[in-house]
C-alpha cells in the first residue's frame, strides 16, 4: 500500500538551532513530492516541489532534498515565525491527488 510517513511528530527548537524533518514514502511511480506549511486554522501553503532524486530546493531558511525513498526539510537557524506544521505529500504516477503524511509540528522558541 502506498504510504507517506513523517518524523518526528513534533519538534521543539531554540531560535537558531538548525534541524531536519523527514518524509519517507513507499509509493510506486512517484510523480512529485510536495512540501507544504500549515498554520493553525489555515490551509496548507505550498513550499516546494521535488521531482527527481538528488533534487534540492531552497527558500529562505528552508531547504528540501529528495532521495529515492525519502525527502528531508532542513530548517537552518530557525526563527519563531517558522513555527508551523510541515506537511509532505506525494503525487503518484497515474493520479493527480496528493497523499499526505501526518505532518511535523515545529515550535521555535525565542
Amino acid at each position, binding site marked *: 500500500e502506498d504510504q507517506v510517513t513523517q518524523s518526528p511528530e513534533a519538534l521543539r527548537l531554540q531560535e537558531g538551532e538548525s534541524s531536519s524533518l523527514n518524509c519517507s514514502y513507499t509509493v510506486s511511480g512517484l*510523480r*512529485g513530492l*510536495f512540501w*507544504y506549511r500549515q498554520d493553525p*486554522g*489555515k*490551509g*496548507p*501553503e*505550498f513550499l516546494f*516541489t521535488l*521531482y527527481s532524486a538528488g533534487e534540492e530546493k531552497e527558500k529562505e531558511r528552508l531547504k528540501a532534498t529528495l532521495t529515492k525513498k525519502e525527502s528531508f526539510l532542513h530548517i537552518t537557524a530557525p526563527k519563531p515565525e517558522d513555527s508551523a506544521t510541515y*506537511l509532505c*505529500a506525494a*503525487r503518484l504516477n497515474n*493520479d*493527480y*491527488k*496528493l*497523499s*499526505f*503524511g*501526518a*505532518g511535523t509540528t515545529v515550535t521555535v522558541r525565542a
Partner: protein
Amino acid sequence: EPEVTQTPSHQVTQMGQEVILRCVPISNHLYFYWYRQILGQKVEFLVSFYNNEISEKSEIFDDQFSVERPDGSNFTLKIRSTKLEDSAMYFCASMMDRSSNQPQHFGDGTRLSIL
C-alpha cells in the same frame, strides 16, 4: 497573489441536514479538488474534478457527497444528509494543469461541525 477562497469559514449543522461548501478556485486553474482533515488526523483526498466531471474519488466520497461547478468560478461540495463523522475541516484546492511540477493551491478551509 491569486488565492483559493472558501466560504463559509465555519458551518454548524444538525445531523441529517444538507450542507453546501463553496470554493472559488484560482481563475486560470483547470483541476479542482476537495480534501478533508478530521481533527488530529492526516489531510485526506475526497474527489478531483476536471472538465465538468469527476476524474477520481476516494472511498470516503460516497453517494452522500456530490460536487458541482455551477458557473465559471464556483466549485461546490454538497453533503446530502450529514453524519456526526462528517465533522472536519474541508479544503478546496486547485491546480493549473497536470504538469508534474504543478502544485495544488489550497484555500483556508471550512470547519464543518455536525451536532
